[in-house]
């Protein structure tokens, strides 16, 4: 047919020319007989370059054979058209050699006994990329879903489980498959929560709740757990709600931490000690009520201020050193110091520093616990004062006692003793002067009287020695110790050795007395407790220092511990006595190694 071109044909040619898709016609030899502009553009050739050329030039070489076969197969089927894509990937090849995926359909017809094929092609590079991106997105979501510590559940309109993630399954103590097809509220009944879910389905409004308590009906042993959770309605393509996304977070730990924190805060707040936190930058971060009371600054005034607010300027150096010390490591034992009040007053305090650490053990701040010691100091002072007065009093009492003893002892010696001796002499002379016959009558009573007199003198002598040995006053310490040692050895049967030198010049009477009395007490202790076989007493003087040692070889005791009661008082008395007159008292003892008492005295410079 050679009809002129009809308007109908013209219209058709226009459609082909303006089509978005590439259109290519080929003859039975697979040679191109028609191309539209879109095809030229797609492959990067001009129409002229394509017409009369084999179709295979538009196909990468490795696909050409398969493609030829495919078209021949198609011709045999007599089917008018089909998509090519279902037979596998169709790939186009541009003039510049670049390949690209195409979506192709092919049609065939008989025209004047000639078989013609029409191929319609669409570049799907972009589409594939979009699909790839979508797939990646999906994978990402899947991964998030699988790995998040949020528990995520997808429920359908009937609140049946559609999908749960591992976190949720783990939290509930079941494998993920367990939930499939089950109804949420069959597993975990709860009318109030179900109403919330239904409402979200009905209204399409999301819902969030924080720290909601929940008890697992199948795990009562877990107790009450706390959950932050969110409901998010999911809509289908029509915009109708067809499911719920249910995301949960277990906040039980946090809740407990909060409660603990609240308890700690309450303790800090109610503490009688001022507790403050100092940040690493040296500013006050926290300030409790007791701190307000102690320092006079309110929390509002103090927080944010440098810690120097409460340090007296004159002590800043030392305080800073303590702080550095606390920063280095563990809490320091309480430090006694002085703090500054708002009104400028200095308060004696006891401070404990301790580093505040985060979970990683890094020091993030320091806590100060400050105790007001004013009252304690006052009491201590009062106590010390009264102890001093007591010591002074007992010292004075002892002095008075010694003076009295001395006076009585002298009195006994000079008056009673002398009188008794004289009486003895007179009685003796009486015997010598009486006529013989008178003597016979009184001889017996006279003899008795003389015997009685002697025993009275002996008694007076004992009482004198007991009261105060006159030899101490007459000849000093070494002489008195010699007498003491002799009498002690005789009385106790313990071998007693005295060595030493006469002190030149003699010590003050008050010192001689103290050292003698302490020696007496020490020997008494030895006789009573030590089970000693021998005692050594030595008195020496060198370079202005007087030393008196008393050592026994008895059973001893643990010198660091308090000895048995009676002995204990003896030791206290000795020490007290020594210290009252400025004599150093030292005691050395160990079980089985005897006891040694050392007295030491520095002579006053002449």
């Amino acid at each position, binding site marked *: 047919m050679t009809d002129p071109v009809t308007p109908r044909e013209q219209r058709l040619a226009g459609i082909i020319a303006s089509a978005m898709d590439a259109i290519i016609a080929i003859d039975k030899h697979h040679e191109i007989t028609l191309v539209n502009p879109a095809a030229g553009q797609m492959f990067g050739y001009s129409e002229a370059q394509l017409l009369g050329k084999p179709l295979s030039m538009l196909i990468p070489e490795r696909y050409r054979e398969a493609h030829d076969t495919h078209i021949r197969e198609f011709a045999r089927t007599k089917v008018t058209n089909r998509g090519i894509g279902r037979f596998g990937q169709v790939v186009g090849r541009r003039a510049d050699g670049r390949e690209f995926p195409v979506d192709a359909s092919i049609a065939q017809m008989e025209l004047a006994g000639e078989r013609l094929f029409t191929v319609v092609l669409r570049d799907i590079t972009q589409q594939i990329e979009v699909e790839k991106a979508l797939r990646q997105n999906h994978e990402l979501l899947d991964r998030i879903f699988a790995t998040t510590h949020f528990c995520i559940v997808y429920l359908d309109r009937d609140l049946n489980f559609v999908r749960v993630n591992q976190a949720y399954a783990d939290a509930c103590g079941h494998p993920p498959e367990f939930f499939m097809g089950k109804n949420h509220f069959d597993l975990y009944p709860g009318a109030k929560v179900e109403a919330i879910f239904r409402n979200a389905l009905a209204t399409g409004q999301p819902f969030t709740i924080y720290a909601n308590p929940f008890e697992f009906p199948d795990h009562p042993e877990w107790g009450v757990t706390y959950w932050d959770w969110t409901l998010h309605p999911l809509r289908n393509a029509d915009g109708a709600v067809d499911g719920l996304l249910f995301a949960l977070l277990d906040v039980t730990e946090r809740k407990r931490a909060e409660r603990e924190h609240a308890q700690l805060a309450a303790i800090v707040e109610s503490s009688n000690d001022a507790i403050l936190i100092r940040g690493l930058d040296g500013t006050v971060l926290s300030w409790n009520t007791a701190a307000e009371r102690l320092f006079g600054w309110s929390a509002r005034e103090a927080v944010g201020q440098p810690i120097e607010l409460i340090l007296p300027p004159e002590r800043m150096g030392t305080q800073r050193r303590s702080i550095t010390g606390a920063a280095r490591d563990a809490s320091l034992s309480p430090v006694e110091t002085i703090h500054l009040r708002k009104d400028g007053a200095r308060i004696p305090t006891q401070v404990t520093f301790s580093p505040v650490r985060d979970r990683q053990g890094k020091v993030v701040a320091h806590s100060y616990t400050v105790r007001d010691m004013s009252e304690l100091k006052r009491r201590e002072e009062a106590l010390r004062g009264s102890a001093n007065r007591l010591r002074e009093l007992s010292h004075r009492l002892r002095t008075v006692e010694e003076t009295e003893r001395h006076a009585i002892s002298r009195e006994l010696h000079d008056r009673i003793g*002398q009188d008794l*001796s004289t009486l003895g002499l007179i009685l*003796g002379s009486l015997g010598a002067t009486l006529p013989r016959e008178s003597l016979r009558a009184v001889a017996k009573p006279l003899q008795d009287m*003389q015997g009685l007199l002697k025993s009275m003198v002996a008694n007076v002598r004992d009482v004198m020695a007991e009261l105060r040995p006159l030899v101490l006053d007459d000849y000093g310490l070494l002489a008195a110790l*010699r007498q003491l040692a002799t009498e002690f050895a005789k009385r106790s049967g313990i071998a007693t050795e005295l060595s030493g030198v006469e002190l030149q010049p003699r010590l003050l009477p008050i010192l001689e007395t103290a050292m003698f009395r302490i020696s007496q007490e020490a020997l008494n202790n030895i006789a009573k407790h030590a089970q000693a076989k021998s005692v050594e007493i030595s008195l020496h003087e060198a370079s202005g220092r007087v*030393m008196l040692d008393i050592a026994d070889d008895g059973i001893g005791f643990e010198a660091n511990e308090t000895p048995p009661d009676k002995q204990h008082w003896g030791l206290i008395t000795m020490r007290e006595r020594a210290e009252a007159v400025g004599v150093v008292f030292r005691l050395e003892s160990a079980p089985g190694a005897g006891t*040694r008492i050392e007295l030491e005295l520095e002579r006053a410079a002449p």
Partner: protein
Amino acid sequence: MTIRVLLVDDHTLMREGLRALLATTTDIEVVGEVRTGREAERQVVQINPDVVLMDIAMPDLNGIEAARLIHLKCPAVRIVMLSMHATAEYVYRAFEAGACGYLLKEVAVEEVITAVRTVHGGGRYLSPALAESVPDPDPGAGYARGPIDSLSTRERQVLQLVVEGKTSSEIARAIYLSPKSVQTYRSRLMLKLGVGDLPSLVKFALEHGLTPPK
């Protein structure tokens, strides 16, 4: 020849009693009486008695001090202390001061005549009652002479071992003390002997007669 006695006692009745007692003998004569040590010291030159019979406890110079002065002035005068004091210390002091007799007042009636005769005859007299507590009235017996003598047995032991070059623990083992105690003894020794360090201590000990290590 009678023994001429001076009585020294502040107690009048005592003097009278003694005078009466001595008067019962034919060989003893009381040639004077004074009331204080000071008076005795003055009178003894003029009276020149053979024996002074003297109390210890007296106002204005006690008996022992008076004895010392009298003995210095007139060494031939024999002094007998007559005292209430029954302790070794007074006996020792009296003999050291130059007395040659010591008797207790309460036994004077029995012993004073014997005592006066004994000392006048050149002997010493001590009340038998005192002999027990004063085993050796020899002046100076048992009393320290040198610095080393003034140390106790234990201290001398420790010092000897130190001089021999023993360590604290060796000394401790040798004399059954703890090493710590030995150290205390040693530092105390140095203090007592007034030496500052160990070499000086050894030197001091050698100079004062301790034997060096063999």
